[in-house]
């Protein structure tokens, strides 16, 4: 299982992040490197890619917020 996090070097500020949209639904099969979510920190939007192949599990829904370093989804090998 791998955690989906915002890369540390992108998260400069001490603010929460918000999931703007999920490109793949909870339970979808995703491939490593595919853009799976749009996340916003303060006013900057980032594309987040799947860290590995497998089944995506959302931990935070669209519009939900999460903290620096927190895994907001996981990808489980099938």
């Amino acid at each position, binding site marked *: 299982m791998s955690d989906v996090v915002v890369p540390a070097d992108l998260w400069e500020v001490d*603010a*929460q*992040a*918000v999931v*703007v949209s999920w490109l793949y639904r909870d339970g979808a099969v995703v491939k490593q490197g595919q853009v799976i979510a749009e996340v*916003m920190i*303060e*006013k*900057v939007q980032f594309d987040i890619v799947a860290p590995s192949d497998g089944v995506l599990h959302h931990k935070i829904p669209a*519009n939900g*917020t999460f903290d620096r370093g927190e895994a907001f989804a996981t990808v489980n090998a099938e």
Partner: protein
Amino acid sequence: MHELTAERRIWMYRTMVKSRAVDDRLNSLYLDGKTPIFDFRAGILPGELHPSNGQEPCAVGVCAHLGPDDSITTGHRPHHVAIAKGVDLKRMVAEILGRATGLSGGRGGHMHIYDKAVNFGSSGIIAEGIGPAAGMAFAAKFRGRQSVAIAYIGEGAANAGAFHEVLNLAGIYKLPFILVVEDNAWAVSVPKSYSTSVPRNSDRAAGYGIPGEYVSGNDPDLIFAAAGRAVERARGGEGSTLLELQTTRLKGHFVPDALAYMSADERKAMVDMNPIYRDRLTAEGVLTNQEAQSLEAEALAEVEAAFEYAMHSRFPNPEAAFDCVYA
């Protein structure tokens, strides 16, 4: 031509402080309510906001020579110029906050600030204010007046068609017109070094038969001197001038701008003239530290009163949308 007296320098500093206080307050009101997902629509100050933090010297150095009969047009970054021109501060803040008591009754918002009493107008499409300022100069000349008209643009606008057309018109009609180019080196994310075929737009003036002057350093005193020369030419019937002023855009293009297209070095290199000018005035004995503090407190009090007025003003009647379409 106006001399650079202590009184004028103090006025310039005080106006820079006032302008910065307005922009700082607007910046924080703007961000209020717009998180966690950034949304232009949300909060007490919706829409776009283009702060003038850092560009205050360009406004005060020029406006120190102007009276209410002189006209100014400017673009989407109007606040510092409006304040230096003597626009009604309470009604300007009310306009930015979309209140019925605003200068346009809430119809214009931050990019569209008009105060006819001091002949000031700003609008949002790049370079569109250059022609109208030349037209106000045309009217002044036609009527035998001594007044001048000034268009403020950014260096990005110097690549738009209107810049070239109107400079040529100013040249052939010998208008009492000054084109002030605020060179903050960036047009949103496009650097001047890329967009412009020559290093200085002031050199382009020769192509239109008028004098051009470049002022480096974002220095109110140097800007005052150059503007004085241009205003004297204009009032004396000698025609137009192109003034390009090096300045700095401390907050980027608009409030949600994270300046990601600038390098860390470029961001660090941006200099804030406000405290530097204060240090100069106190070092030269123009102001004591105590006088500076008291002047700052006064300016802040004036700004506070303007925001109080605006925040307590009523919102427009929705049906007021239908007024002012035609005269």
